[in-house]
């Protein structure tokens, strides 16, 4: 029965399947819809109220009524401290623990998927969700902004003006920045997900860490720690709205997130490779 030359697929099938399962789930759509609701809520609220007094509320809020393109960026500023980490925590915390709770982890492993490959595929899936989440906020914000408000050239933080087309490109870059910002948290979620078979526990722990990091980040007494927090550059994406674009925070952020991926990826690897699968 065994074939003489064992057939080997590239292994992309598992990744395709992972993305397909992730983005076919109703829960994933619910999370993305909740994220899309944030810019919609902001835009509708501004449209219905009289012009907001400048200087109050999140940055860019006062600009929205003049230029609908700012809805997406405003929504990101609102979403990044809690809503985005919440959805990332759900997806990243579910990676391994969710499979364990369904009883599918053992069947994936004896298929055999290989433990390292499964871990990598799971992380790529979580990263893909980070991108989808950031993109959802930006796209939903831009669309609702264009529908409810006038759209025109965007005045940057440096005072210069760019055309709508270039503004849209910068918004895409911002979505990329936010995605990268969330990769460290995803790696933490993946690691926590390997230590438990209870997905809700892993989700809650990941989300709690995201909140804790920001609380620590707000305490001046712990300033020496701030550059090491994965949330340190989360709001740095506004640097992409300068002229010329200031890439420094983008680079620092990418480096910091890469560090988190290495450390927590290694921890997840060490834990998962030797774990007794009893689920």
């Amino acid at each position, binding site marked *: 029965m065994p074939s003489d030359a064992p057939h080997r*697929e*590239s292994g992309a*099938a*598992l990744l*395709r*399947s992972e993305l397909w399962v992730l983005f076919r789930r109703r829960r994933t759509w619910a999370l993305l819809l909740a994220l899309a609701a944030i810019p919609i809520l902001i835009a509708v609220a501004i449209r219905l109220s009289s012009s907001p007094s400048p200087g109050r509320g999140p940055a860019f809020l006062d600009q929205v009524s003049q230029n609908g393109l700012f809805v997406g960026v405003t929504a990101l500023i609102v979403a990044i401290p809690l809503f985005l980490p919440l959805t990332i925590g759900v997806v990243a915390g579910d990676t391994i623990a969710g499979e364990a709770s369904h009883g599918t982890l*053992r*069947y994936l492993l004896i298929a055999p998927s*290989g433990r390292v490959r499964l871990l990598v595929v799971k992380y790529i899936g979580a990263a893909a969700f980070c991108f989808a989440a950031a993109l959802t906020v930006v796209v939903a914000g831009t669309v609702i902004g264009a529908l409810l408000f006038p759209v025109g050239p965007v005045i940057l933080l440096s005072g210069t003006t760019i055309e709508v087309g270039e503004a849209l490109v910068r918004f895409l870059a911002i979505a990329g920045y936010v995605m990268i910002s969330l990769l460290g948290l995803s790696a933490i979620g993946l690691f926590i997900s390997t230590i438990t078979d209870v997905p809700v526990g892993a989700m809650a722990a990941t989300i709690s860490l995201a909140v804790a990091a920001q609380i620590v980040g707000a305490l001046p007494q712990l300033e020496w720690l701030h550059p090491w927090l994965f949330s340190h550059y989360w709001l740095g994406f506004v640097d992409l709205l300068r002229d010329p674009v200031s890439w420094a925070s983008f680079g620092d952020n990418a480096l910091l997130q890469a560090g988190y991926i290495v450390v927590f990826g290694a921890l997840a690897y060490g834990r998962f490779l030797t774990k007794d699968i*009893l689920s």
Partner: protein
Amino acid sequence: MTTIGDPDLAIETSGLTKRFGSQTAVNSIDLAVPRGSVFGFLGPNGSGKTTSIRMMLGLVAPSSGEVRVLGGEVPRHLPEVLPRVGALVEGPGFYPFLSGSANLRRLDSADRGAPSATRRARVDAALDRVGLSHAAGKKVGAYSLGMKQRLGIANALLVPRELLVLDEPTNGLDPQGTREVRHLIRTLTDGGTTVFVSSHLLAEIEQMCTHAAVMSVGGLVAQGTLDDLRRVGGSRIRLLTPDSELAIRVLARLGLESRAVPEPDAGYLVTASLARAAGAVAGAPPATPGDRPGALPVPEVIVAALVAEGIRVRGFSVQRASLEERFVALTGEGFDIAQ
């Protein structure tokens, strides 16, 4: 401990042990599953069957001892071994929000040895084989336990396998489903597949298997062909006589320990075991037919001795112990879950 690596064995373990903290779930088992056999892995709940299976499949690392599956050492050669093994471990596990066929495609995509080009066709064939074609598009969350169990078996059959490990395969199935699974296992073995079935149900093992091993409290207490296991249980004599006290004395002289219970119409039923000490084959190679207890008297000698003493023999028979008696003797009766 012997060195292992017999090519005729599909599964071979040596001193296989798993401890969880201070608990020993599996205690130094030496299992030998011949290729081409239908091997029953029998034992009460909590006797260490599933943990042993998990070690064979590389899900759990042994605390000590060795496992070889299809000639490859586990866990070192798992990537070569596992594609040739189909398994159902501790019940089916599926994504409730996906359909039956989508679940199988998902799990199949994890196997790099399973060609993507034929995935749909193979999934359809496996579903057809377990009689689930009509429910292929239904979400697994809406499946009954029996349907999930069938889907789990279909998952083990997605590609041709040399070895199937089925942990309680008929769990949750109705009698019709149980018959179908039995039939399926028979057709698989006709194709040369070795089937390793665990069960706590003796009748199931007795109907399907050529070989069996019995687990009790983490240890292997017996293994061999079904005939070997029955033989080791030994036979019993059943004597119907009104002269019970005298009969017991005569039997004692012959070295047989017997007891009498009142029997309507015949006076008493006197029974005595012709077995050697229990557990003679525990972990040892199967006994050969010539290896019968020599010290005990043959039946005709017993009858002659009884008649010579003037005992009224109203009935005499020798009964081979049923596998069930053997099973109970090895694992103990009752509902206490081990540990």
